């Protein structure tokens, strides 16, 4: 079984990179708005279906489809936050988190209403794996990995160098101080909801590119996304990337010691271990 170790590691890195995008979105929203938004599940599905419409119905390639996944999921994120979650934030994080679970069920069923329950696939050429020695990788996976890395670099650059990125970090670190400096926390909140859910949407579509999508697509990833964010440190963007890699690689490598039927136990185990020994996550909760 150990002969499969390099292959499992490669599979884990690819899974982890894809997981990182929605995990960044989830943790960024937590950093600024201070509640775990479980509606990431349905927003991943929204992104996957938005990409599907552009790719299959309009016949455009993957990159414009991913852009539409970002825009539509981001817009749905802002609107649903304004309508359903923002009015509840004054009642506390727990109330808002529970409402976000209800929201995800509502959005999932709206998607079901328009698209039905059937599985749908993207209109992209499917190619066989290529081999690098003992390791086989699919070109589509490599493309997804590259896209995920590029998007992560853009996110980090935006947080580090742009005015809005600095404003986001300021609100995440200390909302009162940011307010004193004249930063509009409401506007920052909207932009974070847009960008965060946009990233979740892109993640949903990237996952869908490797498989097929249905209205439950996003719901399947909620546990690893949450685990990645918690492991890295809720609210920490680099932490989300580290957490995603740990969960992604951990899930794939678990096949060496666990029955594959218990793969999801890795996510739970990671959450339990981190909350027990390092409750603020591996990288703490600083946004950047």
């Amino acid at each position, binding site marked *: *079984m150990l002969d*499969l170790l390099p*292959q*499992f590691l490669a*599979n884990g890195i690819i*899974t982890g990179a894809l997981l990182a995008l929605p995990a960044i979105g989830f943790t960024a929203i937590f950093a600024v708005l201070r509640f775990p938004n479980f509606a990431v599940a349905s927003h991943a599905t929204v992104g996957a279906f938005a990409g599907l419409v552009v790719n299959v119905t309009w016949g455009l390639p993957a990159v414009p489809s991913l852009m539409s996944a970002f825009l539509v999921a981001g817009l749905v994120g802002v609107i649903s936050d304004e309508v359903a979650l923002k009015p509840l934030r004054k009642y506390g994080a727990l109330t808002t988190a529970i409402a976000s679970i209800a929201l995800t069920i509502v959005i999932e069923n709206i998607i*079901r209403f328009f698209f*039905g*329950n*059937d*599985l*749908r*696939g993207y209109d992209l*050429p*499917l*190619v*066989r*794996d290529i081999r690098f020695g003992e390791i*086989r990788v*699919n070109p589509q996976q490599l493309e997804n990995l590259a896209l995920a890395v590029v998007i992560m670099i853009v996110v980090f650059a935006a947080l580090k160098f742009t005015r809005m990125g600095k404003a986001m970090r300021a609100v995440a670190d200390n909302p009162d101080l940011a307010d004193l400096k004249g930063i509009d926390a409401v506007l920052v909140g909207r932009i974070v909801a847009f960008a965060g859910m946009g990233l979740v949407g892109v993640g949903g579509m990237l*996952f869908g590119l*490797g*498989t*097929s999508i*249905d*209205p*439950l697509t996003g719901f*399947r*990833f909620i546990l690893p996304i949450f685990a990645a964010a918690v492991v890295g440190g809720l609210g920490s963007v680099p932490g989300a990337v580290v957490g995603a890699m740990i969960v992604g690689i951990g899930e*794939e490598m678990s*096949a060496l010691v666990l*029955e*594959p*039927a*218990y*793969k*999801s136990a890795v996510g739970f185990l990671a959450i339990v271990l981190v909350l027990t020994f390092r409750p603020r996550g591996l990288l703490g909760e600083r946004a950047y």
Partner: protein
Amino acid sequence: MTISRLTFAPSRRTVLAGAAALIASPAILRAQSDGITFGTLTPLTGVGGTYGPSMRDAAASVFTAVSQAGGLLGQQIDLVSEDTQTNPEAAVRAVRKLIDVDGVSVVIGTWASSITTAVAPLCWENGVMLFTVSGADSITRLPHMGYIARTQPNSILQIQVAGEFMLRQGATGMAWIGPQTPFAQSSIDILAEQAGAAGIEMESLIYEADKSTYRSEIDTIMRSNPDFIMLGGYAADSTVVLRDIWQAGYEGRIIGPAYAVNPTVLEALPNDVTEGVYTWEGAPDVTGGAYANVRAALGVDVVDPYSAQTYDHANLAVLAAAAAGDAGGPAIRDSLRSISQGDGTQVSDALAGLEVLANGGSVNYTGASGPCDFDGIGDITGTQFLFNQISGGSPSEFERV
């Protein structure tokens, strides 16, 4: 006018009586119902959502026809349809509502085996007849006291037939890969036994459902170099597995249940991936009158096996109630085999059967899914299997056994 507090102070006895009335209220509501109430519990959403709506419609068409023709035992049939969401927790909530609130005496159409396993105890404890299309062999071994009847061949028979097919096609190394289901382990055991008897290798792997990729699982199963792989999952995970197997460069043969490699999967995957894949299913009796009836009722050319079965469930429930003179669950259970098999007049729909029964005759219902004869534990006896092979993205008949 003043009312003393004492007047409203409830005694212990009043409180107990009130509580008892509250607890008994579903039964009271049931007693107040005018007509006969039957329920469908099909997967309108979730991975079984492809089949659930037409399964419900097929059953509803029977009840509508009977009600329009004067009803059952002089009463109209009310149909209440609930959604399992292809999720056991949701299905249990739904069946509780059907039993406690709607007071149904029959539940029709549970699809996934995990769901039937979850709702069956609630049915037999409440004296409700459960007609199911689930295949897991463990279901009819439950202590159901006769309250379960299934029209789907059980998983043992299904896997045996498919395993024999794989060997007939010259398999030299077999593999089974599928998610954790009530029939996963028994499927592996049966194939392992068949492979052992034939002196060939057999590898198996149970994976976790609802994952976006099974690359590591495929790598694991490929280590034994199988030349014939059986899929054991449902549509969503089989799509991913088929794609991953193809991408891994596998050139051998694959067989999967028709409900897993179904038209939506064929639509979602490129033809290259599904080319040559075999599927198998319990075959509806396409030549019979009942099949023609359900085709007309649904307005389709080809009826899926599950809608054919729920059409039969509805007919069987109506005829069993009519034969017993009572539409309650226990009466339907007791008279089911008197109208599903035996020497009575062969009928292929409830209306014809009701006429025979009204004239003092006996009936033998022959359904859209097959003869609908049941053994002592509620499994069907005598069914055909259809093997298809996918070519150019669509299935074509390979053989019938």
